[in-house]
């Protein structure tokens, strides 16, 4: 064996830049979205919850509580559907926290971070998967609601508006969940965050009008983001007066998205550099 025969290989040349940075950023994010969607589709328990939770809640609120709750509208189902949509999609978005924590605690993140890819691609993958997943569960809620007698008054433009607000809501909650997922030290801790999100709609106008609550609670309910978001969706779907809730809703959701996105990308860089 001579020295020439064992000569080491030259370092690999950098891959030819056949495509631009933007192309690869999009391609890498696409791979990550497929990964996240596969994970979602293969977690049978999570999938069952995504189907059973909305349907059960709908039945519970309309048939169990509905008779006893007076909202000043004709049918409680017309009042409660937007709330249930928010509850389910909010919870669904919050599950993103668990996936992010799993990635951060299971070593796979080091491998992703040493690849020549945009570092936030993995986070964007989770968020986009969350958007798709919750679009599906929202359609499921709507389908069930329509079967149960939900009678929306919205025209095409209002439907589009409601869909936009809901998408923005899921986007905001997903990025917020990413932040909690990055902060959580374990998947159990990340799971705790999903419960917080699950309960938030109860202290809002999602299920009962806020004026029935004690003053302090009503104050919180009226000034937390779920209320204007619920009111906006309800107004768009049912044709009730929108009463200036659309702007606060959009402001809240945009604010949460921007702050959470910034925090998430910063935390991601920092947390991975420990």
């Amino acid at each position, binding site marked *: 064996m001579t020295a020439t025969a064992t000569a080491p290989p030259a370092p690999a040349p950098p891959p030819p830049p056949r495509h631009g940075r933007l192309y690869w950023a999009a391609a890498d994010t696409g791979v990550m979205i497929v990964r996240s969607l596969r994970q979602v589709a293969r977690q049978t328990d999570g999938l069952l919850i995504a189907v059973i939770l909305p349907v059960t809640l709908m039945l519970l609120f309309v048939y169990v509580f509905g008779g006893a709750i007076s909202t000043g509208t004709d049918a409680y189902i017309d009042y409660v559907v937007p709330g249930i949509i928010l509850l389910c999609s909010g919870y669904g978005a919050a599950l993103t926290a668990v996936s992010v924590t799993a990635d951060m605690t299971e070593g796979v993140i080091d*491998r*992703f971070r*040493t690849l020549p890819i945009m570092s936030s691609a993995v986070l964007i993958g989770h968020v986009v998967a969350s958007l798709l997943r919750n679009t599906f569960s929202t359609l499921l809620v709507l389908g069930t609601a329509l079967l149960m007698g939900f009678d929306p008054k919205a025209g095409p433009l209002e439907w589009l508006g409601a869909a936009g607000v809901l998408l923005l809501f899921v986007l905001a909650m997903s990025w917020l969940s990413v932040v909690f997922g990055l902060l959580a030290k374990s998947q159990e801790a990340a799971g705790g965050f999903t419960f917080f999100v699950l309960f938030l709609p109860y202290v809002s106008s999602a299920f009962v009008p806020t004026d029935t609550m004690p003053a302090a609670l009503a104050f919180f309910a009226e000034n937390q983001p779920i209320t204007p978001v619920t009111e906006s969706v309800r107004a768009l779907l049912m044709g009730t007066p929108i009463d200036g809730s659309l702007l606060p809703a959009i402001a809240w959701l945009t604010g949460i998205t921007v702050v959470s996105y910034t925090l998430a990308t910063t935390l991601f860089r920092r947390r991975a550099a420990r």
Partner: protein
Amino acid sequence: MNATAAAPRARAAAKAVGTGPAAIATAGLRKSYGAVTVLDGIDLTVRAGTVFALLGPNGAGKTTMVRILTTLLPPDSGTAAVFGADVVRTPEAARRHFSLTGQYAAVDELLTGEENLVMMGRLNHLGGAGARRRAAELLDRFDLVDARKRRVRTYSGGMRRRLDLAISLIADPPVIFLDEPTTGLDPRSRRAVWAAIARLVESGSTIFLTTQYLEEADQLADRVAVLHGGRVVADGTPAELKDGMARTLVELRFAADDAYGAAAALLSGPDVRAEPESLVLRVPGAGDAAQVKHLLDLLEAHDVHISRLTLSEPTLDEVFLSLTDPAAHHSAADTNQDAT
């Protein structure tokens, strides 16, 4: 295992001295966490095409070292480069030269083995068709063809590790970092992983691995550096290191002064440790049947009676101590002896 053990030896002969380009070079690397200094000035050069093992006990800073070299962690001071690309100043350039297989199998449990490989191929920008072709090759090479459609969740520890190693090869990187590739595996899986690493070597890659097992470094590496107390306390070929290492001690205990005296005269040598007060002689060596038989035969031939013979294996701590300070080694061996 002889086949895998023989390969590094042959290459070691050709390359241990190594005049090839530096695949990895560090100078004065330091890293502390608060008051704890983990790395205290590390200078290393790993020649291209060689297998380098960083050996050290738990908490010696091996993983910290790997994380710095793979751009995941900035050092407090000092420099590190992979094929000339500085890991701090030009991390993106450095990342093109290596792949990392961390301490915990970094595979996606919910995906199949094949999906894991194709995904990593795509993320390495091989393109869809390229990634699938490469995945098929590697599944075959790492004996995972039958398991390719199964989710990784159902894999055994050894299979996961093999998949992990296959992933580290997907983009054919010139340098492969393996952080404790066999920690937590049973002996059989460990051997399978060793064989898999030997296959990585065939591809001509430079391999930087960390381990807490002497035997592993010995089996796989052309060169070994021992990390202890934040410093490299020994650096050389496995053979060189073993010469300086603590060896098994054959402890001979005698019942009478005259037997002890006769034996001490017969076995005198620089390495033999005599303890006249307790009538004990300690003879270093391989500690195998041949050595023991030789000792017994010799003493028997001279009619010297031994009251007791025990073997004491050096612990990893003693090995590290013996590498830093031969005097410390003696006292450590004695302490160990007193305890037993």
